[in-house]
């Protein structure tokens, strides 16, 4: 598929990254998927689209956000220089808005009036509801009832923004099940509706399209690191559920062999317990939600429920490009537990005055493990993919602080 000398040329025209990716959807959706692909390809090559996208990122989202030198974390961990890419400072509080701005413009080009989306932590739901409010489009968000309970503040935000939040009760009532129900809605409303997928997964062209809209993260890191340090970073670390913040940061650096790239999955209670969300560490290739990728599944190919303290990582799959980068060895994938993430959540909050999302806390936790053994001039960039306001109830419950 890709040229031997590049990790950045995928997917092929059929949406495959090696054996991963593809378009495993019901026939009803195929013509629609093909029309999304065409609309996206047209948009990509339209300078007016790019101008509008960039303009909204700057004036509405607030980009570029800082690449912040975290001096107190650097001192505490006693090794590498720690930088935080501040996606948490974006409008709506996470990287998710980058993709939503891009896709809502594609949906408008297609003449769609109704937007549906799935959400886990609620960050993608909030970002989708936000761009729908901005563009005056109807918005329906599918969210597992388990997640509605643990991310209540985001549910209220979505409702205030004018979205209808539909609770999903099937399965474990988390992100996987929300995605099933969003796909069912799309099959039943193909004419009117655009499915705004929130991560680098799903049928082609979504993994490539979402990645492209998120690469603004990595492009900024590259320029900002050049400005601050006069060179490329040495190590990048990002958390992975579906993997959109990670792919957005990693992609512009994939062909820079000097840059070590690490994705951090959620190990939940520990990989050995079976209660985790680490598809690459604890899963194997399969087909779900329109793509072939690493999945948590039993011996008979039935999907197994994921577990993570972080609703945004609580998904039994991962974007297909990550599966390919894993097998090619270009990106190293590791995992950290709920407890490790909770500890780093507190460290970052106390030392830097920045409350990270529980998702991003997984990246912090792995950075803490490796930073101390790295030289003082080693530049380690962590993607602070979102802010943790939405997680304070979960954290309080876990730390025995009672609920708010």
């Amino acid at each position, binding site marked *: 598929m890709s040229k031997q000398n590049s990790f950045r040329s995928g997917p092929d025209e*059929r949406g495959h990254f090696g054996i991963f990716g*593809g*378009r*495993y*959807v*019901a*026939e*009803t*959706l*195929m*013509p*629609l998927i093909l029309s999304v692909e065409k609309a996206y390809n047209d948009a990509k090559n339209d300078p007016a689209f790019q101008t509008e996208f960039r303009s909204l990122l700057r004036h509405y989202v607030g980009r570029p956000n800082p690449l912040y030198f975290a001096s107190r974390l650097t001192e505490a961990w006693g090794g590498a220089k720690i930088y935080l890419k501040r996606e948490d400072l974006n409008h709506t509080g996470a990287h998710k808005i980058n993709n939503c701005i891009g896709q809502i413009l594609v949906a408008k080009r297609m003449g769609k009036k109704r937007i549906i989306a799935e959400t886990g932590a609620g960050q993608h739901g909030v970002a989708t509801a936000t761009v729908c409010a901005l563009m005056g489009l109807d918005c329906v968000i599918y969210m597992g009832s388990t997640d509605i309970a643990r991310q209540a503040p985001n549910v209220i935000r979505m409702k205030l923004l004018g979205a209808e939040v539909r609770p999903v009760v*099937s*399965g474990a009532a988390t992100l*996987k099940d929300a995605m*099933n129900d969003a*796909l*069912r809605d799309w*099959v*039943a*409303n*193909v*004419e009117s509706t655009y499915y705004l997928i929130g991560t680098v997964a799903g049928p082609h062209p979504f993994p490539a399209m979402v990645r492209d809209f998120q690469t603004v993260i990595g492009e900024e890191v590259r320029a900002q690191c050049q400005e601050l340090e006069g060179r490329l970073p040495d190590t990048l670390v990002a958390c992975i559920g579906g993997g959109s913040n990670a792919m957005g940061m990693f992609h512009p650096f994939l062909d820079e062999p000097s840059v070590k790239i690490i994705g951090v999955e959620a190990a939940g209670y520990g990989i050995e317990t079976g209660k985790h969300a680490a598809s690459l560490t604890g899963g194997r290739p*399969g*087909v*779900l*939600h*329109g793509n*072939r990728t690493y*999945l948590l*599944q039993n*011996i*008979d*190919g*039935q*999907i197994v429920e994921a577990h993570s303290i972080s609703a945004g990582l609580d998904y039994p799959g991962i974007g297909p490009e990550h599966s390919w980068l894993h097998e090619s060895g270009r990106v190293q994938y590791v995992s950290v537990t709920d407890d490790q993430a909770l500890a780093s959540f507190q460290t970052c909050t106390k030392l830097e005055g920045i409350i990270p999302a529980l998702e991003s806390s997984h990246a912090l936790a792995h950075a803490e493990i490796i930073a101390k053994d790295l030289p003082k001039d080693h530049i380690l960039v962590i993607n602070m993919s979102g802010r943790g306001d939405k997680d304070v109830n979960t954290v309080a419950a876990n730390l025995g602080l009672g609920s708010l």
Partner: protein
Amino acid sequence: MSRLAKRLSELKAQNRAALVTYMMACDPNQATAQTVLNGLPGAGADIIELGMPFTDPMADGPAIQASALRALASGGSVKSCLEMVKAFRKTDQNTPMVLMGYFNPIYSWGVEKFCKDAAEAGVDGLIIVDLPPEEVDELLPHAKANDIDFIFLATPTSDDARLPTIVEKASGFVYYVSIAGITGTKTATTTDVGEAVARIRRHTELPICVGFGIRSREQAAELARFADGVVIGSVIVDMLAKGDSIVALALVRDIASGIKDARK
């Protein structure tokens, strides 16, 4: 000639449509499901679709999803689906058997091995909901090598531009999904289905069976006037969910007689 082709051409010669019945394997358990399955030809089923349970059936409504989860809870698996077909073949050598499900359990079993094992068990066709023409090449050669028909779905979104892609690789019959939606929810009008079937016929000589949203003898009979086959599923699954296999088979008998008289 394959069992499917033979059955469909016999029915064409008799000038009547096929009754295609769907049920989930191993719901509520393997033994009960086997009894119902073995009773279907006697009740008037001409072709049987046996559902293979999957945890995440994205094209199915609540009834069939619940059925799949019951089947899995009772130990349903690829292995037990194949066992059911094998047991069925001890009592019936003529009724075509089509397995219907999602790709991941088959991929997990091993595509080549699955096609071989399915053929050995007595399977005649496959419907894999999430394996569209764009992705089917990894399975199709193995199905062909084992004389298994691969049945593609056509839908209300399949226009004249899309249909050639669908029928190009199809065999057995074309399954027209009469609504844009999930199983067991909306119902299409007879006029719309008639137009769609006529459109598909312009692209293929294969028989066309119509399914999704058909719940009564009257509906089935109306469609049986022009379609080559009528598929009923959710309504059978609903009755089996209530533990009423006798009522389910009686319904099949009733719909079968409606179809038999439809063109008279």
